[in-house]
């Protein structure tokens, strides 16, 4: 979330799209309700009349996978009626920047498409520039000359050409306006199936937040991301928020409702192939042969990421301690380099199936139920030599060799199932969706032989260190020299010592740093995660309660000179970065420093100082301590532009979000003859089907009473009692067609599998009219499977496709094709 849960109360219009917050984040409704008490409208857009829709002011049904048609139509409506926030767009976005005149778009393809490689050459997407700005290595960037700092050629900024009048045909504003002219209300309605009058009512209501001082917020979840163009769906929302001046505003922002308690933190910690902690790129053998390459390729010419070398060297110092020196490039070579191939979840199971991946660790994950096309994933696990599953439960993954129809004697995989502690049987921090890093104290010891994951990991590391010291082996120093000095006097893991190392400290005296502005690229500081820097800063205490992360002051005073009451709660836990609750918050004021909404100010420039209700996301102090003075318009400090991107060169599949159909779709793309996202790579194992055999759209979703693959809920009798069985929701119309009644057992099938579920015939689904034809959509939860706990049932992911997003490879769980029939008993 760019904003946070309590801040929802500051919104004038709340749009839930691709998320069902009343069902899946029920407590969020406390703050939506607070906003509505103050007159806010709550809009829900979803294929199904969800529990959220049931309490909304306005509901719009939309066929799965057509969000860009809906949002692109909204852009067009905003442009045609001049409803954008003009001053915001001019000052805080790249609307005025000129783009290479060779940039173009034709029939669903952007310029530079390489059909054979299914990728784009992005040369024509770049800005049109004039002149260059090198780094001032005598002034602001003098740190590069400090002894110990690795040598690298500093980047050179390109000066953009701009047209502040926004009228040049090659400026981003005009290119965008032109791009979306095709997205008429009629087309948007025909593609999405949303009735046109309802759509116009939603557009009008949401676009009203483009008035200066008004705030609209977007709440989204996997309904947006789990598509082959999921990243573009998310960008489409961000772009909308920029057009309407909602980014950085209290009550605004783009808010991902994250579905796992610490999925924000596990992402920040980079349990992902493509990044290392705090969003730095994993070294790659093509781009980063040596440390110098890494620093040159990964350090941008402008914006706050110019400090990346400080964060990166500090991370290497945390990992390898005294072993990491300037002479050995801070042990850069110890870090494994990618080979340029995709190593994401889907690719990992392909590699397992091919026999490349032979050993697998699972830390509380259950892909036998949660993975796309999960029967294929279970089959791939049979090829493993060994598996280590750390969990509270005997998951379907740990017992994949017991699955129905499988003969265990044919499977040679060794499995170690290690009993883990649950969250209140250990201590540590956890990051919520609003980036609040909250401390959890330990209440009781784990039962029996159970241990927490951190301790288990530590034991494995110690055993490996002993083995490599005794026997040698492949690059033993990567393991023997790894720092692990987080132990207490009884040789158990001391989480508080580890927290210090993650926060960062100066190497010479071991003292914690106050925040990441104190980190250096010369080897004098160590830091596990620069975004966490500031969460553990009290040098005089090892007690979490004395640290920012453990802070429990629940009052809501002003930070400086205003009235407070904005929901910032700056004294409760620690929020990354630097306890800032709303990011991009400079944009909550006009360039002169006047809040767009004077009744809900985050900041206010008095003429001599900034008053504040949040930690500023802008340099409010110059190096000499004086206040930096408005007017200024650098509101997006992480980007070299300083301005937000309506047009983004970083995307794999185009600088503007463009509508394509899901890889399995009942419809032909009405906006171009390019049916699917052209930058997606598909593996054969996805066994894609077509609408002639499988005419019904299906989507998966979650329930209040259950969670993910069900381990944490199907093993709890209370929750199974409240929601006992796997089911399929279908419309009355489809049920009539198929002769199905509520309570019947239904077979759902496609090329990837067949499952059964109980029918729930409901008005919550209605048939769509798509390009003039009737299209049915059904949905099921995905919490069930063949074993574990008090309730078993069909696994929805036996049906989902292992086809992934062009940018992230997240699977297209939310839109695929099936057929259904009543099960003959």
């Amino acid at each position, binding site marked *: 979330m760019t904003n946070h849960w309590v801040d929802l109360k500051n919104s004038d219009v709340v749009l839930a799209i691709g998320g069902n917050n009343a069902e899946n984040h029920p*407590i969020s409704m406390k703050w939506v309700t607070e906003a509505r008490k103050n007159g806010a409208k709550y809009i829900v857009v979803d294929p199904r009349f969800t529990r959220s829709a049931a309490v909304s002011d306005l509901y719009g049904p939309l066929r799965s996978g057509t969000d860009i048609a809906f949002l692109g139509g909204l852009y067009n409506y905003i442009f045609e009626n001049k409803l954008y926030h003009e001053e915001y767009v001019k000052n805080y976005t790249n609307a005025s920047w000129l783009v290479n005149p060779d940039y173009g778009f034709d029939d669903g393809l952007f310029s530079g498409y390489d059909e054979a490689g299914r990728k784009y050459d992005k040369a024509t997407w770049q800005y049109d520039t004039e002149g260059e700005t090198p780094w001032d290595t005598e002034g602001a960037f003098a740190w590069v000359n400090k002894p110990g700092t690795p040598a690298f050629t500093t980047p050179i900024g390109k000066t953009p050409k701009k047209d502040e009048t926004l009228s040049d045909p090659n400026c981003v504003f005009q290119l965008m306006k032109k791009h979306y002219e095709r997205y008429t209300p009629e087309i948007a309605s025909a593609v999405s199936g949303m009735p046109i009058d309802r759509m116009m009512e939603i557009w009008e209501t949401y676009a009203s937040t483009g008035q200066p001082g008004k705030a609209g917020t977007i709440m989204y979840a996997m309904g947006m991301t789990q598509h082959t163009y999921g990243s573009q769906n998310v960008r489409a929302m961000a772009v909308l928020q920029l057009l309407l001046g909602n980014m950085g505003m209290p009550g605004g922002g783009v808010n991902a*409702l994250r579905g*796992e*308690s*610490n*999925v924000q*933190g*596990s992402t920040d910690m980079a*349990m992902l192939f493509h990044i*290392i902690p705090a969003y730095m790129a994993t070294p790659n053998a093509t781009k980063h042969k040596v440390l110098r390459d890494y620093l040159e390729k990964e350090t941008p010419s402008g914006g706050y990421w110019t400090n990346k070398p400080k964060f990166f060297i500090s991370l290497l110092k945390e990992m390898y301690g005294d072993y990491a020196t300037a002479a050995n490039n801070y042990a850069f070579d110890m*870090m494994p380099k990618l080979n340029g191939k995709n190593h994401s*979840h889907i*690719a*990992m199971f392909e590699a397992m199936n091919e026999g*490349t*991946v*032979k*050993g*697998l*660790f*699972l830390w509380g*994950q259950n892909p036998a139920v*949660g993975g796309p096309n999960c029967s294929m994933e279970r089959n791939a696990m049979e090829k493993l030599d060994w598996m280590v599953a*750390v969990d509270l*439960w*005997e998951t379907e993954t740990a017992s994949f*060799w017991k699955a129905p129809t499988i003969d*265990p004697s044919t*499977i040679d995989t*060794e499995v*170690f199932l*290690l009993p883990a502690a649950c*969250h209140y*049987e250990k201590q540590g*921090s956890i990051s919520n*969706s*609003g980036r609040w890093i*909250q401390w959890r*104290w330990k*209440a009781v*010891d*784990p039962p029996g*032989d159970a*241990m927490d*994951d*951190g301790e288990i*990991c530590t034991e*494995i*590391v110690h055993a490996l260190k002993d*083995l490599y010291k005794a026997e040698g*082996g492949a690059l033993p120093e*990567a393991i023997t020299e*790894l720092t692990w000095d987080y132990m207490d006097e009884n040789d158990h893991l001391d989480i508080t010592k580890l927290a210090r190392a993650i926060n960062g400290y100066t190497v010479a005296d071991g003292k914690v740093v106050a925040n990441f502005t104190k980190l250096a690229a010369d080897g004098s500081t160590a830091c596990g995660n620069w975004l966490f820097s500031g969460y553990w800063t009290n040098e005089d205490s090892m007690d979490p309660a004395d640290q920012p992360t453990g802070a*429990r002051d629940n009052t809501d005073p002003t930070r400086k000179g205003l009235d407070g009451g904005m929901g910032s709660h700056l004294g409760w836990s620690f929020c990354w970065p630097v306890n800032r609750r709303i990011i991009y918050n400079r944009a909550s004021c006009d360039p002169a420093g006047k809040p767009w909404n004077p009744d809900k100010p985050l900041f206010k420039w008095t003429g001599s100082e900034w008053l504040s209700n949040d930690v500023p996301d802008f340099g409010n102090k110059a190096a000499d301590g004086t206040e930096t003075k408005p007017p200024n318009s650098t509101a997006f400090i992480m980007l070299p532009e300083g301005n937000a991107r309506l047009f983004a060169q970083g995307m794999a599949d185009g600088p503007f979000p463009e509508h394509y159909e899901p890889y399995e779709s009942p419809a032909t793309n009405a906006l171009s003859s390019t049916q699917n996202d052209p930058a997606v790579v598909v593996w054969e194992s996805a066994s894609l089907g077509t609408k002639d055999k499988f005419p019904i759209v299906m989507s998966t979703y979650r329930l209040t009473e*259950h969670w993910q693959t069900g381990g944490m809920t199907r093993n*709890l009798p209370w*929750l199974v009692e409240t929601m006992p069985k796997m089911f399929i929701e279908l419309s009355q119309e489809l049920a009539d067609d198929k002769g199905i009644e509520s309570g019947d057992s239904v077979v759902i099938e496609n090329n990837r599998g067949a499952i059964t579920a109980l029918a729930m015939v409901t008005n919550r689904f209605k048939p769509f009219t798509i390009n003039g034809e009737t299209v049915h959509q059904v949905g099921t939860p995905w919490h069930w499977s063949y074993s*574990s706990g008090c309730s078993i049932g069909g696994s929805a992911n036996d049906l989902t496709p292992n086809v992934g997003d062009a940018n992230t490879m*997240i*699977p297209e769980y939310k839109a695929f094709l099936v057929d259904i029939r009543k099960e003959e008993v």
Partner: protein
Amino acid sequence: MNITRRGFLKLSGAAFAAGALSDFVGQSTALAAEPLEWRLADVKETPSICCYCAVGCGSICSVKDGELINMEGDPDHPVNRGSLCSKGSAQFQLRNVYDPESGDLILNPYRQTKVRYRAAGASEFEDKDWDWAITEIAKRVKKTRDESFETKDSNGVTVNRTEAIGFLGGAGLDNEECYLVQKLARAVGVTYIEHQARI
């Protein structure tokens, strides 16, 4: 190797619980004056954060004689202000359930409390101890790593990686644990590191 879990609360943590939670203790005392026996009298209360979605609601664990006897919403928490949803209200059962026969508080029978091992071709798990399991796991990791380790790629670039080991998970771990797990993975040379955020 002695790795039996002891894990007593650090003194500092206990002091926090007693100090910061005096409000709840006071509430419990007041209610204990009612004619019915108040089951949360004389409990140690510890704040926690819910393990399900990422709203991050606060909850309070009540512990008596070393055992968890109740969990409920934390009224001091600025986001949930004491409320919990149906899942959050059920966190208690991750550990304990009431025996339907006797009504006694017992450990959730589905919780794993033993190290278990499934040998190649076996049709069941067998119980093992930690020392054995950690030793055997380390041997497997070393063997697979050493056999598959690439020091340089075909272009002569130092890559120091193994493609033969995968890491999955986990968004249910604490931040500090996540840091350690990915640190272990990268030290081993693992490139297939993924978790729930991708799917």
